[in-house]
């Protein structure tokens, strides 16, 4: 099946020049948009980033490959990556990483391999830190170590909710959750996402995504373009996503301590 093969080029996204300009303006070039890096003390951040590079990432770039050595952690400043489990011809998404997080969870947990593929869905930018630097800094800096381990738990929460959502939600709920999660990580409007890409990530057929997006649009909650979705009524999309969205995001705030994302529901 097409959706289990390579993602077609036309489904992958490009950041707009505005996206890059926003990064530059907010940071003066190479500042901190990454929530983990922002949450660190100056000393811990300096130790972690010693020798790190700021790298531009291409859409569909594989920043971690299954069963291959993880040489770097990418603390993402802009763009979105997906963590996928590939088994045979099938792939399923565990979760997303945007500027709230980082790749390299295997390294944070004391290893340098994982069975997962981490794939850039958009182009982006990241602080790339060598795995041995991460390990050394974690050994030397207990607060850094605790924060990175808490991020592992935050990602684990996200993956658990993805599993629950895949097992128990309707396609409309899953699409609503996905629209919110992508929107959280691509804050510029409209967030570029094709139906085919959403279907690929949600392990469903495109027609289901088309119908669900159509239903959300007919309720006035989103505006669907050919390759873009604009969120019009975030609160009501959160209501549709229900308990499949929100808890991992709130837990992220509790664990990492930064303000993200703009959840509106109170329960």
């Amino acid at each position: 099946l097409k959706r289990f093969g390579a993602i077609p080029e036309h489904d992958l996204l490009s950041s707009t020049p505005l996206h890059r300009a926003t990064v530059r303006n907010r940071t003066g070039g190479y500042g901190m948009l990454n929530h983990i890096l922002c949450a660190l003390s100056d000393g811990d951040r300096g130790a972690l980033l010693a020798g790190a590079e700021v790298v531009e990432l291409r859409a569909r770039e594989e920043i971690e490959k299954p069963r291959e050595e993880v040489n770097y952690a990418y603390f993402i400043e802009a763009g979105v990556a997906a963590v996928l489990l590939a088994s045979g011809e099938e792939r399923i998404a565990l979760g997303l990483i945007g500027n709230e997080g980082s790749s390299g969870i295997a390294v944070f947990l004391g290893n340098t391999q994982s069975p997962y593929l981490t794939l850039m869905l958009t182009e982006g930018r990241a602080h790339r830190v060598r795995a041995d630097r991460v390990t050394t800094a974690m050994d030397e800096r207990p607060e850094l170590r605790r924060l990175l381990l808490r991020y592992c738990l935050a990602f684990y929460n996200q993956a658990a909710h993805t599993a629950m959502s895949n097992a128990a939600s309707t396609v409309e709920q899953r699409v609503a959750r996905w629209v919110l999660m992508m929107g959280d990580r691509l804050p510029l409007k409209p967030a570029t996402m094709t139906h085919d890409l959403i279907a690929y990530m949600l392990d469903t057929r495109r027609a289901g995504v088309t119908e669900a997006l159509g239903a959300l649009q007919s309720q006035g909650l989103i505006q669907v373009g050919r390759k873009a979705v604009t969120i019009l009524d975030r609160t009501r999309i959160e209501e549709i996503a229900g308990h499949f969205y929100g808890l991992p995001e709130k837990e992220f705030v509790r664990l990492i301590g930064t303000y993200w994302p703009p959840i509106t529901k109170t329960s």
Partner: protein
Amino acid sequence: MTMAIYFLHVQNATEKIEDLEGEECDTLDLAIDAAVDSARELLIDRLRSKKPADGEGSRIEVADSAGHVLAVIEMKDVLKGKF
């Protein structure tokens, strides 16, 4: 042989939702197979969502890029196992 783009428009109980992107298939038969598989998934999801599954006119239309409808997959036929 170049692949053609086929569009799977979804008609449910209340509205017709246009497929704006389409998908590439080698042949019309493969596009019809994709439409049938899509119909099965939609039926499962509608039942799970407690929505009308195979109401009158509920179907998937397979169209070419010129907008010509080449095949129609009726949900009720899929439910009856005709494919």
